[in-house]
């Protein structure tokens, strides 16, 4: 089999001030025609840099210093800018992580597909349009005749990614590079897009270089796997060989860190209820004289209880209302109706002035640990701010802060430093410490581990479990990731379109989902047939 892509000894230098010399170092791998190669690694492993080097799309600061990237025998590193432009879109094409931002928001989607044809072919305007509609039909977009004139924001995330794929494949390139194309999508949409990529690869014989951090996705679609760490290739080989017999400790550790889809047996927690929610509703929008009726029922008749020492998970896809519920409970937004009982205190309708005193009892840890910390304040200042608001003296608050740092596994000198000096996982530990600083009864984790690499994710999950036990916290764990939910939650609530569709002990929900939607969610999770995190590795 002749190769579509041969990368040999590729080295890309980082600018002088960086913490390592090269973004990628001496990497060699190839992609055959009709073959799907997954490059898997954690953030900073150099997998995206590799893809950008092949496409000639590296940021100005990064310079390839050695090696070749041969596309059908032609080295793209040595190609002139003009030649590179000719190759892009015709011989090699790329799709990206965020289908919303990767499409031009002010141009119609058809126009954006036609643009590829306009650059590389002599087709007339009407021929280009016909071709765009045809390829949209191929990627199974509904009603392409009409959709061709839509703007990106009028489509769903999955449809946008299909447009990207249509755009990439319209001229039948030999190589398709997909850089985390399903990471920003819901799990059911992800399953559809993966299926589409696989179908296109098989039908058109395209070689696919698929970049991902998600071993579930790898298990689902890869023919061969390349594992990268710190800019080097750790291990590569056929899918089954790597998944069943990883030889390198790093690969073994990565795979062991992927949370298992099998929930461990947990003894039911029956403590006093820390929080009781009844008939909670949140409605957005209003009707007016001149405005159209745009009412969204973000949460509808939600009932839930969390006991002390218990973790209740809320799982669902984007727009299911899971975060709305969390924000209502924390009173970051005002519920439209319903009751929220916090150990005897009714807070759903409490006025802001009285609410302040109670705020310390419910704390949230958010998804993005970097943006949740003020970049211009030291960790110490961020940590003592809330306790001091509640009347704790500076000395006491600082002493507490030092203890908290130890609790979350950081040195106490971290208090003197700034957020940018920490890694993502460390920052999330800091955010957890900050939430704990006011001694809450209820901790809400809103996608708190979703932005973290799997190896770090496992550690943070462990930390959350520990502190819940230690402080007998009631924990509300919001996530879209079923694997994570399986490992940390005692009970689960499954939400869809603002409604609770199913609830019960985690192991029951996973073993015997009664609702169709839950079954769909569980079956859509990638790589369910491979058992990760079994402890076999490590």
């Amino acid at each position, binding site marked *: 089999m002749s190769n579509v892509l041969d990368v040999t000894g590729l080295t890309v230098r980082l600018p002088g001030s960086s913490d390592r010399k090269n973004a990628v170092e001496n990497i060699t791998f190839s992609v055959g025609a009709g073959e799907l190669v997954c490059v898997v690694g954690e953030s900073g492993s150099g997998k995206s840099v590799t893809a950008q080097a092949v*496409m000639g*799309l590296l940021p100005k600061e990064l310079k390839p210093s050695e090696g070749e990237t041969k596309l059908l025998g032609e080295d793209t590193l040595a190609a002139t800018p003009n030649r*590179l*432009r*000719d*190759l*892009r*879109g*015709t011989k090699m*094409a*790329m799709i*990206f992580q*965020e289908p919303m*931002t*990767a*499409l*031009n*928001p*002010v*141009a119609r989607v058809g126009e954006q597909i036609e*643009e*590829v044809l306009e*650059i*590389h072919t002599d087709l007339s305007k009407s021929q280009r349009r016909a071709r765009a509609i045809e390829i949209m039909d191929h990627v199974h977009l509904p009603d392409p005749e009409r959709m061709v004139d839509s*703007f990106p*924001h009028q489509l769903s995330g999955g449809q946008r990614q299909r447009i*990207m794929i249509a*755009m990439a494949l319209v001229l039948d390139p030999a190589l398709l590079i997909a850089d985390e194309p399903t990471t920003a999508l819901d799990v059911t949409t992800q399953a559809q897009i993966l299926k589409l990529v696989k179908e296109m690869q098989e039908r058109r014989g395209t070689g696919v270089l698929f970049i991902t951090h998600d071993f579930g996705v790898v298990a689902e679609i890869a023919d061969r796997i390349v594992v990268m760490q710190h800019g080097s290739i750790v291990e590569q080989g056929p899918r089954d060989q790597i998944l069943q017999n990883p030889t390198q400790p790093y690969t073994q550790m990565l795979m062991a860190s992927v949370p298992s889809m099998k929930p461990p047996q947990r003894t039911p927690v029956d403590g006093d209820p820390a929080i009781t929610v009844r008939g909670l509703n949140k409605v957005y929008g209003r009707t007016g004289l*001149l*405005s159209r009726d745009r009412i969204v029922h973000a949460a509808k008749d939600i009932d839930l209880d969390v006991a002390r020492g218990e973790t209740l998970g809320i799982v669902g896809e984007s727009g299911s209302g899971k975060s709305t519920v969390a924000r209502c409970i924390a009173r970051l937004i005002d519920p439209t109706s319903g009751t929220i009982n916090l150990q005897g205190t009714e807070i759903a309708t409490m006025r802001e002035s009285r609410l302040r005193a109670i705020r310390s009892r419910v704390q949230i840890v958010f998804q993005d640990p970097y943006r949740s910390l003020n970049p211009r304040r030291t960790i110490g200042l961020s940590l003592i701010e809330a306790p001091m608001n509640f009347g704790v003296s500076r000395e006491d608050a600082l002493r507490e802060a030092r203890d908290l740092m130890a609790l979350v596994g950081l040195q106490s000198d971290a208090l003197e430093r700034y957020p940018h000096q920490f890694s993502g996982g460390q920052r999330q530990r800091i955010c957890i410490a900050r939430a704990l600083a006011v001694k809450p009864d209820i901790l809400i984790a809103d996608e708190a581990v979703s932005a973290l690499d799997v190896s770090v994710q496992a550690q943070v999950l462990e930390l959350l479990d520990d502190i819940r036990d230690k402080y007998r916290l009631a924990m509300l764990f919001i996530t879209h990731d079923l694997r994570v939910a399986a490992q940390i939650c005692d009970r689960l609530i499954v939400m869809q379109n603002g409604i609770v569709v199913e609830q019960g002990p985690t192991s029951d929900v996973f073993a015997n989902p009664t609702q169709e939607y839950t079954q769909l969610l569980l079956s859509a999770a990638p790589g369910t047939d491979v058992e990760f995190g079994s402890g076999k590795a490590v």
Partner: protein
Amino acid sequence: MLSYLIKRILATIPVMLFVAVFIFLLLRLTPGDPAAMLAGDFANDAQIAEIRAKLGLDEPLWKQFGLWISDMLRFELGESFYYKKEVSELILSRIEPTLSLSLLTIIFTVLIAVPLGTIAAYKQGSWMDRGIMGFSVLGFSLPVFVIGYGLIYVFSVQLGWLPVQGYARIADGVGEWLYRLILPAIALSVIFVAFIARMTRTSVLEVLGEDYIRTARAKGQTESRVLMRHALRNAAVPIVTVIGLAIAILIGGVVVTESVFTIPGLGLLTVEAVLNRDFPTIQAVILFFSVVYVLINLAVDVSYTLLDPRIRY
């Protein structure tokens, strides 16, 4: 879209009403008898009484306002004391020069500033970028009259290429009209070029970092098309906002420029009216400018919905 337009137009009514009340009170609240003031220094009591009756100054204030506003709405702006002519006629005859100057200035500004800003953004950090931004600082720091007299000195007095001052009606030939307007339009546009080039640079720089720019490059699109088709179109909303602001500020600049180049437009009319305490004219000109401001704002807001399909009201 239609409901948005209606809503937006309805929203201008309170603004215009506020302006009208302000202008109305301006005259009524000036110390002394407005009638005496309107009549001028050499009027006798009978004349003052006549004016008072004519203006309805004996009536309660709200009634006076009602009368005045209904006059204004019918474009009956009163008679100028100084020119002894209907103010409406006066304004109509002075619109053309001002409109010509403003329009030409805006065209120059946009044609120069947007490409400069885009190049500066694309070549960020290069000598071109630094040069353009250096010019922009200079443009900011020089007042219109300095630039105006400077240009007159070089191009009219020394080189003799262009006229020192004056205006030719467009009806008398476009060539002559343009010939006489070039210098004033350039003088007036310098500061706006500086302003809009800077804004364009910032806006385009931000857009150039977006994912869809990378997508366009991944398609094999040429750099110039990436800039024109993808970057500039997305950067347009903030740029159009400042162009709208610039037009509004421009009207202020017109007063000075028309004085420097002796162009018989609304700016010069305003100056003359103020110097001669010609109150009906001052009132009418202020009201006219306010309406223009409001209309420009409306046009800018509506243009957003055309430039960005995501903006819907």
